[in-house]
């Protein structure tokens, strides 16, 4: 809507009488357009898809629709934008506003009917759609000069281009170099000496193909290629902002590794990461896969508005989906229509709407062994319960009898408190429609929340506090600790009476709860530096007036994450006959750590407060889940529901004490598991609004889920869930999905993608070097069932891949970046592989796949203030975990592991599909002096002394081959031996001398280069 004021303003300023003569397009209008508009909206470029040098395109308009509505200047974007009306930037963008007369001319021209003679202006032939927005079609193979060289279609496309450029491909590289290249590419480790020897000995025709297949089957393949995906998925083990809290998300990392190792089809791989939880009978893996969307950062610093940072996370998700899956940079449209690609802002929010209906969940996950154990325990209990039933045929009647005695008499009135902001120490208490409140944002380790209520009940004799689950709490809550637990230090009540200066404290005389655990000292993670003995225990601990004691509900794995309730009876009921009594309830929660920087709180996560006039009210011992079933008439209950009631009831039957104790023990032996951030669907649909300039405080119209018009349409009958979105993205006619992926695979092999800007295939992308090859690969990929391994095999068995990487000065001058591929690739490996090569060559490498992230040596000062914001855990590994592959290194976003950072490893702030590759003095210092690099040199030295053969020459050759796969040339061997002699002459021990020699070999350019 246009502001009325500006319309009036303009018509006063430019009265029509000044221009008695009718506006003539050629004389009056065209010069203005030519001078001020067609630079950006003309033949050369069409920002916003708009072209104003031709009649047809002016009237059809760009992404915002027709630019001119004849007779309605004030409804015509052309006029609105130059006049600076409405809320969008004034045109010409970045320039001075048009002079008033010119604006007036444009207005009159439109108001007079916008007459544009047909023969005037540019003739626009149907504008061809940008290549990447049209689904790829399998291109015909080109005719080439040397058909024999073209081993597979890839070679044909590469050779055709070389023919055009009058270049010849290079010869195949030698076998040793080839195997090292192949190994680094497929598994990120150099081949062992034995593997090289075996390959050299294998004279069969398919010797090379066998190696490809061997390495594709290696579990390290998933680690190597998973790392590329983890960059795109912005994977990291911490929250990012400020305190940069640790998070457990390595199940997602392992999901990626495993998915690649089992060659999960890429379309499925994407679908699971966007909507695994919505798949029929979703497995744990499929739910974990949605961790992709949860790799966004979380800000829980003091005083944040949680919704603001949920929005930031949403924007980040869409950016990651765009770059990693669609191969498009769509983030621009968060604030305005995309300047270059035909993506409108409302279309951005249509995508947003697909992803918006979610909870930010953190769920318990279990390893396969733990899953088996859990299943075993549940099965055992089921059998024991069946046995109890079998041996007590009257159980059903007895249970019905019990049920009749369990009717609740107390009437509860749920109250919606007002929370005093200061008292919460920065935590937000988000009030829900069911009167519960969810703790969100900053989590202070100690606070005493003041809740003010004005109940309806005439007399208030008892309070009930329910601790409830919520998908947004750790492990579903009901608390906010990393285990989803909380602790109630004290429950206090006071009344404000008119005329009394000070509120009156009301004594709580008795308390009951559905869970009373024995007294237990706090875990040491909650150490608060006071050295007081702080404990949790039964509900009495919440009314004993002691700061050190609290009601706790940590009943062990799984059981700790059930809803709980407590009831508090007042010594004297509060009279509220005038319905005006103001009551303050204090929830003291002081059983967290010493300071929020340690990220260890035990706050209640979701609570609901109710009042009753019943002075003898007690906490209902029946679990909430069972109580809900009891509300269903007995005849309508399912077998499962009946079993659930039985599961509780039998625990109350004294005669079954022994069996109950056994079952309790079984439940107590449930495995701890781990946690994982995932997305889960909300039951209640959340509205998505278009946000003005991306500002969540400025919501505009509601937008329904949908897809951009310039891409493939949603299939008929598609719904509005994430799964529909995922299926749309991976349909055969999705133009960019397959292209984006095969291009990135190409980039990993050859250093530059066929399209250099691998994050963006849109209109601003660089032109593909081999467009037909890209399309051929994309089509082949989709038609071979989106098999990533087949794609790799296709590329690796080409002659293109197998060329020597030596380069002549002429070729280097002609093609410095090797875009034409007249030679093989040669470039430094990624940071993780730098470390892995060193560990592998030295024999230290621990090849274990998967599991929690590890802490290799790092300078300890990095993890404490003032280097780090707060103290961070970095318990340096002393055992075999010290030598795990670098991909398992724990990744704090705010304190990146320095070795990896120095070698350009991204820290997971944002989705990254193209790493930088620098070559710096800091890298040299790292490889020369960093402790683990030196440990590797020592280990390689010891190995060389013990296993390297008899002579120095043998030993030098041994160390060299372990690192570089090939034997040293004569000159190299001479250099190394001379160095060794020199060090020996300096009275170093043999181990010292060999260590310094190993250090040299580990520091060669070739060592950390794929060539």
């Amino acid at each position, binding site marked *: 809507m246009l502001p009325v004021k500006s319309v009036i303003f303009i018509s006063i300023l430019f009265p029509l009488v000044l221009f008695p003569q009718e506006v003539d397009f050629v004389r009056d209008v065209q010069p203005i357009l030519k001078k001020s508009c067609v630079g950006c909206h003309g033949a050369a470029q069409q920002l916003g898809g708009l072209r104003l040098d031709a009649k047809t395109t002016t009237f059809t308009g760009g992404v915002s629709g027709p630019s001119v509505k004849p007779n309605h200047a004030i409804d015509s974007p052309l006029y609105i934008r130059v006049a600076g009306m409405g809320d969008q930037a004034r045109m010409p963008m970045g320039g001075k506003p048009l002079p008033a007369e010119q604006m007036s001319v444009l207005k009159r021209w439109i108001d007079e009917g916008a007459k544009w003679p047909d023969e005037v202006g540019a003739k626009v032939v149907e504008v061809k759609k940008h290549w990447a927005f049209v689904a790829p079609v399998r291109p015909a193979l080109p005719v080439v000069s040397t058909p024999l060289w073209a081993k597979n279609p890839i070679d044909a496309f590469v050779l055709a281009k070389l023919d055009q450029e009058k270049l010849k491909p290079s010869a195949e590289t030698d076998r040793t170099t080839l195997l090292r290249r192949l190994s680094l590419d497929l598994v990120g480790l150099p081949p062992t000496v034995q593997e090289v020897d075996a390959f050299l000995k294998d004279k069969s025709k398919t010797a090379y193909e066998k190696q490809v297949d061997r390495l594709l089957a290696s579990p390290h393949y998933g680690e190597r290629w998973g790392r590329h995906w983890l960059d795109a998925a912005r994977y990291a083990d911490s929250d990012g902002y*400020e305190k940069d809290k640790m998070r457990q998300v390595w199940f997602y990392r392992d999901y990626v590794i495993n998915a690649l190792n089992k060659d999960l089809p890429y379309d499925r791989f994407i679908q699971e990461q966007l909507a695994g939880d919505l798949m029929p009978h979703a497995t744990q893996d499929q739910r974990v896969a949605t961790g992709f969307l949860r790799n966004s950062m979380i800000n829980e610093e003091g005083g944040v508005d949680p919704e603001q940072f949920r929005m930031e996370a949403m924007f980040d998700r869409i950016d990651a989906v765009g770059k990693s899956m669609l191969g498009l940079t769509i983030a621009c449209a968060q604030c305005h229509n995309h300047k270059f690609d035909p993506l409108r802002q409302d279309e951005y929010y249509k995508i947003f709407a697909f992803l918006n209906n979610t909870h930010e969940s953190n769920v318990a996950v279990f390893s396969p062994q733990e899953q088996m154990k859990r299943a075993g325990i549940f099965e055992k209990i089921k059998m024991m319960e069946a046995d109890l039933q079998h041996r007590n045929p009257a159980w059903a009647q007895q249970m019905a009898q019990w049920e009749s005695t369990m009717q609740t008499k107390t009437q509860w009135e749920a109250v919606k408190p007002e929370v005093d902001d200061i008292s919460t120490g920065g935590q937000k208490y988000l009030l829900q429609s069911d009167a519960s409140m969810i703790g969100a944002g900053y989590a202070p380790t100690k606070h005493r929340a003041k809740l003010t209520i004005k109940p309806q009940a005439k007399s208030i004799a008892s309070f009930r506090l329910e601790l409830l689950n919520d998908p947004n709490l750790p492990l579903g809550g009901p608390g906010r600790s990393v285990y989803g637990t909380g602790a109630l230090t004290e429950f206090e009540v006071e009344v404000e009476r008119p005329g009394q200066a000070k509120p009156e404290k009301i004594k709580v005389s008795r308390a009951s709860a559905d869970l009373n655990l024995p007294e237990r000292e706090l875990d040491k993670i909650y150490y608060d530096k006071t050295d007081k003995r702080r404990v949790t225990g039964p509900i009495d601990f919440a009314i004993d007036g002691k700061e050190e004691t609290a009601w706790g509900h940590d009943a062990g794995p799984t059981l700790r994450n059930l809803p709980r309730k407590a009831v508090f009876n007042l010594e004297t009921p509060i009279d509220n006959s005038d319905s005006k009594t103001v009551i303050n309830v204090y929830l003291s929660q002081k059983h967290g750590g010493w300071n929020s920087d340690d990220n260890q709180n035990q706050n209640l996560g979701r609570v609901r407060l109710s009042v009753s006039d019943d002075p003898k009210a007690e906490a209902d011992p029946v679990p909430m889940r069972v109580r809900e079933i009891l509300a269903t008439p007995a005849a309508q209950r399912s077998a499962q529901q009946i079993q659930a009631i039985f599961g509780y009831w039998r625990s109350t039957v004294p005669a079954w004490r022994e069996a109950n104790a056994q079952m309790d023990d079984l439940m107590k032996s449930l495995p701890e598991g781990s946690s994982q951030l995932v997305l889960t669907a909300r039951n209640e649909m959340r509205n998505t609004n278009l946000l003005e300039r991306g500002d969540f405080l400025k919501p505009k119209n509601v937008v329904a889920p949908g897809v951009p018009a310039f891409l493939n349409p949603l299939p008929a009958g598609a719904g509005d869930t994430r799964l529909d979105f995922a299926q749309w993205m991976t349909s055969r006619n999705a133009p960019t999905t397959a292209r984006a992926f095969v291009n990135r695979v190409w980039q990993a092999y050859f250093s530059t993608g066929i399209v250099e800007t691998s994050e963006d295939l849109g209109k601003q992308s660089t032109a593909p070097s081999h467009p037909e090859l890209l399309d051929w690969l994309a089509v082949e990929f989709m038609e071979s069932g989106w098999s990533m391994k087949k794609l790799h095999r296709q590329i690796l068995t080409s002659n293109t891949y197998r060329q020597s990487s030596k380069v002549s000065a002429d070729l280097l001058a002609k093609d410095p970046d090797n875009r034409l591929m007249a030679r093989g690739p040669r470039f430094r490996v990624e940071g993780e592989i730098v470390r892995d090569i060193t560990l592998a060559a030295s024999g230290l490498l621990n090849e274990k796949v998967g599991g929690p992230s590890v802490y290799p040596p790092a300078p300890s000062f990095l993890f404490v203030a003032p280097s780090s*914001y707060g103290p961070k855990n970095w318990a340096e590994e002393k055992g075999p975990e010290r030598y795990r592959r670098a991909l398992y290194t724990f990744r704090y976003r705010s304190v990146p592991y320095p070795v990896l950072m120095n070698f350009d490893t991204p820290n997971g702030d*944002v989705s990254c599909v193209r790493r930088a590759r620098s070559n710096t003095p*800091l890298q040299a210092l790292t490889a020369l002096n960093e402790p683990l690099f030196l440990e590797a040199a020592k280990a390689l030295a010891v190995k060389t002394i013990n296993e390297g053969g008899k002579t120095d020459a043998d030993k030098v050759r041994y160390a060299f081959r372990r690192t570089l796969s090939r034997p040293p040339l004569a000159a190299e061997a001479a250099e190394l031996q001379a160095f060794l002699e020199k060090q020996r002459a300096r009275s170093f021990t043999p181990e010292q001398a060999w260590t310094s020699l190993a250090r040299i070999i580990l520091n060669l350019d070739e060592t950390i280069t794929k060539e």
Partner: protein
Amino acid sequence: MQDKLSIARRWFMKDCGVGLGALAMRGLAQGATTLPNANPLSPKQPHFKAKAKKVIYLFMAGAPSHLEMFDNKPQLAKFDGTLPPPELLKGYRAAFINPNSKLLGPKFKFAKYGQNGAELSELLPHLAKVVDDIAIVKSMSTDAFNHAPGQLLMNTGSMIFGRPSFGAWTTYGLGSEAEDLPAFVVFSTGKKGPSGGNSCWGSGFLPTVHQGVQFRASGDPVLYLSNPEGIDAQLQRESLDSIRRLNQMKLDDVGDPEIATRINSYEMAFKMQTSAPDLMDISKEPKHILDMYGAEPGKPSFANCLLLARRMAERGVRFTQIYHEAWDQHGSLVKDITQNCKDTDQACAALVTDLKQRGMLDDTLVVWGGEFGRTPMTQGGTDGRDHHPNAFTMWMAGGGIKPGLVMGQTDELGFNVVEDKVHVHDLHATLMHLLGFDHTKLTYRSQGRNFRLTDVHGHVVEKLLA
């Protein structure tokens, strides 16, 4: 074989002119983004001739209270303990407090100093002595009211992660004049590290060589600088010689210029092993200089780092940034801000004096400030203030900044800017201008579009220019 070798060598010599050292010059001629092996840190000319060539940025993380240090508000004292006018709070979002909290009068006395009568509180006796050399901007304003986003915005022009920092943009635009030191050095001296973490000095989508390198005021100044145990200087030199010869053999064989760059990197690393400890050794500074800063050799402190910053600037380090995260006074305002000023005021003034007396202030731009201001309202009791984005104070000196300037006004409560508002983007545009850049033209292409430090905002604040 021989033929190929000589071709590769010839190419290498021809293209590199006089040998390895000249490799660094390639970036100039070829354009840093097109050639994979060009040195992106070779010195470059800005858009126009400029005064500032180096930057020393004193980042007061946590957000110092303008009301206790720079912005004298007698009316705030008068209304101490009363509620702020409701119209002021319309649409205002606070971090911790209910915006409708009582006003809190300034805690310290103010007096006028210098030729322009600039007002400073009693917390800043040292700065008062150099007040004619600095420009105070009392009308800063930002969009963020939480620390991490605020620090990111102040450093990168964006509240979200992933954008290059100001320091990274500076070295991207100007390259480095320090052969054997990093172009962009970062210290952290406060009670904590900055809330924005490493991303405060990150390179974002710029080449990673532009990210700040963290230095420590004690121990190894740069990570992995010292030879490990058992490797002495002679062995290190002999090792590097061997590495160089072996790499050279490889270069001769395969002709990949990246190997030449690697050889160069190792040589630079070796030089840095000598130059960095030398740089860090302040014990040879004369006593009066040490005393002026309040620096003590061997005792890491804010003062030591400021002295080091001067030594960095002398050696051609382009951008030195010192984070002092200590200013988040939600409570204990009087005690803590007094201590903070004791820790920093003398050294800040000394830096300005020292640069001036060495003639370095002309081309060294000094910037002091945090990520936002503090509320005129109290937080909790009567001894703390919450985060406040609407108005705060920064000061700058040297590098083309107008000395002795006091610019901008806030309203009577120090709540909103009422005159000469300077948004973070405007500050960036101005600092860029001082370094010789049109902030709209220093761009980097990423993700299909050109990005710049000021995104689509920012105006040069002409008043600040000398």
